[in-house]
Structure formats: structure tokens, C-alpha cells
């Protein structure tokens, strides 16, 4: 029986590899036919295109590698900010869905329902073309300035493109995180609520100190997938003119004609990024489980 199963698995693995082999074979034959080998020498050549916003100094005379790095940093910037804000928003909305306050519950419920039904690309286009580009000149005090040319916030200059992507990703992912948090909280036995209430703790403190820590083991694994989704969804940024890694790769590929190398780099960059995220989350998950086990 056991050998049987092993054989079946081997056959499946073999088929999968055959498919992979076929694809690689196709690739090599096609590259050979068009006279292109794989090569990465072009990375050292000047990019020749400007970028709207960069985290480090960049000029069009810099190399493609540096331009791609700028794109990667831009991606990283919006992803990290998105992770933090989406988590905050998600936890707030998720907790609000379990709130005793009826209005709060309704608000959070409609937020989740509305956002989950609409495709992210549409939401991004909405945030960009309707919300941010529709901004009139609004010098709200000296510290905050809003206009459709950019947003100045306490000395921080944010482009409308960045704001649109960040808002879109945060609001979209926040809705999914809210559901995960709600599910996690519901998984905590009702007795725990009754226990902290009988001790005289107020709702907020009880939620933070008693319920949420116990909900974490149910929340964290699902949260990881949402974080990875957020990172991957950030490539939609090009639709609203944000110079993320995908947008820069896109230009690079057209100018150099190195589509396969360009996509390989893109794949590797996202693999690296997502491995970092899932690695970090796995460590966090382990720590939480360990602490929980010790406290029992």
C-alpha cells in the first residue's frame, strides 16, 4: 500500500517535471531561434529614463540595475507602509464587528462587504482618478497641504500616485484582515469573555489583554497570506502611474528587449520579498505559540 502510494507520487512528480522540462525546452529553442541567449550584461548599461520618485538619488544616466533597485525600493516602501496600515485598519474593523456598539458593528460590516465585492484594480483607479486627482488645492493649515500634485504632511512629501496605491492596498487588504481577526476572536471560547467581565475588566482592556492574545494563533497563519497578497497586489501600481518595481521592469524590458531576463529578475525579487514576509511571520507565529504554551 505504502509502496503503491510512493509510486503514484513519483509518477505525479515525473509528469510535473516533464511539463517543466517542456517549458524550459521551448524557451531554449525559442531563444536559440531568435538568436538571443540569456545574458545580464545590459544591467550595467545606462537606463536612459527618468523616474518620478526615488528613495535614493537617481538620474537617467544611472544603470538599469540602479533603476530597478529604485523600483524595488518604491515597491518596498508602499508594501511596508501598506502592511502596517492594513493591519491597524483590519484589527480595528475586525474588533468593531464584534463590538457591542450597533452602529460600529454596522459600519465595519458594510466596509468589509463593500470592499470585498469590488476588484482591487477598480478600487485603485477610483482612489487615484476620483479621490486623489479630484483633490482641489487645500492648504489645511501650514503642516498639511493637499492638492492633486502631491500631499505634504508634516514635512513629508508624498506623491498622489503613492497615496493612491497605499490607500487602495490598505483599504482592500484591511477588509480581508478584518474578517480574519473577527474569525480569530470568534474562535476564543465565550467563557473567556464572561471570565474577564466577571473580573470587572472593561471591554476594550479585556479584548486587548485576554481575547486577542488567545485569538492570535488562529489569526497569524491567515494573516501571512494576506500580507503576501498585499505584496503581490502592489504590482497593480502601474495602473495609477506609481513607479514600482513592475513599472520599472516594464520600461526596462521594452528598451532592452530582454523580456525573459527581466521577468526572471522580477520573479526573483518578489520571491525574495515574499520569503522575507513569510519567514518573518513564521518566526512571529512560533514566538506567539511558544509564549502561549508557556503561559498554560
Amino acid at each position, binding site marked *: 500500500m505504502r509502496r503503491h502510494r510512493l509510486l503514484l507520487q513519483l509518477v505525479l512528480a515525473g509528469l510535473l517535471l516533464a511539463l517543466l*522540462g517542456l517549458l524550459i525546452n521551448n524557451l531554449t529553442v525559442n531563444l536559440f531561434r*531568435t538568436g538571443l541567449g540569456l545574458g545580464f550584461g545590459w544591467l550595467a548599461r545606462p537606463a536612459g529614463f527618468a523616474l518620478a520618485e526615488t528613495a535614493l538619488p537617481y538620474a537617467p544616466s544611472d544603470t538599469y540595475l540602479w533603476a530597478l533597485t529604485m523600483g524595488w525600493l518604491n515597491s518596498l516602501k508602499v508594501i511596508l507602509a501598506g502592511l502596517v496600515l492594513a493591519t491597524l485598519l483590519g484589527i480595528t474593523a475586525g474588533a468593531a464587528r464584534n463590538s457591542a456598539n450597533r452602529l460600529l458593528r454596522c459600519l465595519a460590516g458594510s466596509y468589509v462587504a463593500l470592499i470585498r465585492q469590488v476588484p482591487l484594480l477598480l478600487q485603485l483607479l477610483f482612489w487615484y482618478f476620483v479621490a486623489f486627482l479630484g483633490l482641489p488645492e487645500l492648504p489645511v493649515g501650514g503642516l498639511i497641504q493637499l492638492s492633486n500634485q502631491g500631499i505634504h504632511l508634516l514635512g513629508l512629501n508624498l506623491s498622489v500616485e503613492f497615496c493612491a496605491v497605499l490607500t487602495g492596498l490598505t483599504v482592500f487588504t484591511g477588509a480581508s484582515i478584518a474578517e480574519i481577526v473577527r474569525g480569530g476572536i470568534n474562535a476564543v471560547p465565550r467563557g473567556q469573555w464572561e471570565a474577564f467581565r466577571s473580573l470587572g475588566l472593561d471591554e476594550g482592556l479585556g479584548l486587548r489583554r485576554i481575547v486577542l492574545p488567545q485569538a492570535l494563533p488562529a489569526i497569524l497563519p491567515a494573516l501571512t497570506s494576506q500580507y503576501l497578497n498585499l505584496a503581490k497586489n502592489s504590482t497593480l501600481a502601474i495602473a495609477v502611474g506609481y513607479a514600482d518595481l513592475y513599472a520599472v521592469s516594464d520600461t526596462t524590458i521594452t528598451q532592452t528587449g530582454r523580456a525573459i531576463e527581466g521577468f526572471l529578475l522580477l520573479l526573483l525579487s518578489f520571491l525574495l520579498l515574499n520569503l522575507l514576509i513569510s519567514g518573518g511571520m513564521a518566526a512571529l507565529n512560533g514566538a506567539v505559540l511558544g509564549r502561549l504554551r508557556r503561559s498554560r
Partner: protein
Amino acid sequence: MIRSSRRLLIGAIAAVASLFGGCASLDEVSSSRLDLVKQRGELLCGVSGKIPGFSFLSAEGAYTGLDVDICRAMAAAFLGDADKVQYRPLTAPERFTALRSGEIDLLSRNTTHTLSRDAVGGNGVGFAPVVFHDGQGLIVPADSGVTTLDELSGKAICVGSGTTTEQNLNDVFASKGIPYTPIKYQDLNQVVGGYLQGRCQAMTSDRSQLAAARSGFDEPNAHVILEDRLSKEPLAPAVAGGDQRFVDATTWVIYALIEAEERGITQANLDRQLRAAEADPTQGALRRFLGVDAGLGRKLGLPDDFVVQAIRATGHYGEIYDRHLGPRSPVAIPRGANRLAEDGGLMIAPPFT
């Protein structure tokens, strides 16, 4: 147990991989895409689908435009039926991958002929002759008062990603030392959206596309196209590189459309001209061109009457131009450099001998 099964798995992987590595067949390299098209009985044509006058989905649900008519002329010449075309709408970054992967046979999508795209070390595609001489321009709101590039210093300019427009923009502005902020979108519709919403003080694209986009604005007259030309953009159909037979066939179908205009052979008078050629053995050049005297088509791997088929389907080059870009079309673009050489333009066909 687990370890040994894993070792077995790796062995199996190696075995299967080597099996497939061995059967890399390069026999197909010598065969032409043209044979595949004929065998399939259908031409897969990559178009934009979003540029009025060039390729645009009409209200009736069919693609129309100059680029589309090129596809139709090709299908007529190759297969004898202009309707045997399957259109694939492609974005700018997708197009060369689609061509290289074999998803399409012919790319007829506002593609600028450049060295990097032509060369084997670049995109390695094979270009047919230019079907539209375009040039990159900038459009600005008329009330901005901008008339020269210098006045755009430090301004945001909306540009489509994955096109030569982005590189040209930088080349020109960098050489003149004018700083600017590019706002890059993937799609022309988004470029237009960003520009109309006031995110950018100017929008850049080929002048033909600017004219086409402006025709859809609420107030077309409130926007002016600047005199400065940032580039020459000879737009040409393309096929996958390394396929001389297919390049030749597409090349000479386009030359046939130009030659037909030079000879004044139109869709309407084609049959009369054909009968005249058949009746008059002294008309050697005309008889060869129309395939009455066989021989030219065969050299290209096409039917001898390929010229007749193409003209019957779309008319000559001037007719195609007038239909989609002429003064009475919604996207009127003065013919300018696209006139025949004998009229002062750049269009000319080598001899059909």
C-alpha cells in the same frame, strides 16, 4: 524511508529532464510561419484595439482602422479571404512577447521601427515597410499658454510605459537640459485620464495618437499639439525574426498597396484594369504586377494573384488612409509625409520585377 524516497525522486527528476533535454527539435526553424498561416487558414494579427483610426473596436463590434486593414490585406493576399483574421488586442509591453512566443503571426500595432527592435541582439523582430510616418509630440491645454519645450521645465508630463515615447522624451529633455517629472501609466487611456484630470501639464505620445485621443475629448479645441517633434516614428508591421520568407511576403504585400496607388488601381476600377491587362499583352509590367503573367507571387510563396486579392479587399494605400485618417474621417490627420514620393511624401514601392 523519507530520505530514500527523496533520493529516488531526484533520480526520477534527472531522468525525465534529460529525456526532454534530448528532444529539443530545431527542425522547425527552417519552416516559415507563412506555411503555418496557410495551413491554419487564418491569420493571427496583433493590434492595439484602442487607437481610433488605426485599430479600434467599432460600434458593430468589428475592428477597424489602418492597422486592421493591413491585417486584412495580408489575409487576402495569403489566404484569398480578408475576413480570415483573428485579432488579438495587445498592450505595448505585451506585443513583442506575443510575437516571439508565437501567439500572433503578424504585429500590426503602431510599432516604431528602431534598431534595437530590429537587431538580433535586441527584440530581434522582422519589420515590413513603414505604413505610417509618425512623430512624437506633446499636447498641452491651450489656456496654459505653453508653446515651447522650455516652458515645460520642472512640469509633470504624462507618458505611456513600455514604449519608445518614454525614452524619446528623456533623450530630448535631457539633451536640452530641461528637468521634468515623468508620470508613467501602462495604458493610453490612463495617460489621457491623468492628463485631463490635471495631474500633468502635458501629455506625450505619437502625434497620430494625440490627434486620435483629442477627437474624443469634450472640448478638442481646448488642447493644442506643440510644434516640436521629439522623434521620427516610422510605424511598421512586424513578424518574428529569423523568418525571411514571412518577412518578404508581408513586405511585398505592403509594397503592392503602394504600387497600386502609384498606378491608380483602386478597389473600384480593379476589375476593369485586370481585364485590360489580360487583353493587352504589351502591358508587361502591369500584367506581372496583377499576376496575369505568373511568377512574382510564386517567388514569395504566395498565390500569383496576391496583389489582386489584397487590392480587392482594402483598396490601395491611399484608399486605406483616406478611409480611416482622411479629412472626412473622425480622426483627420493631414497626409504629410505619408503621401507618395511622387507627391512629395515618403511612400514608394520598389519595382515589381
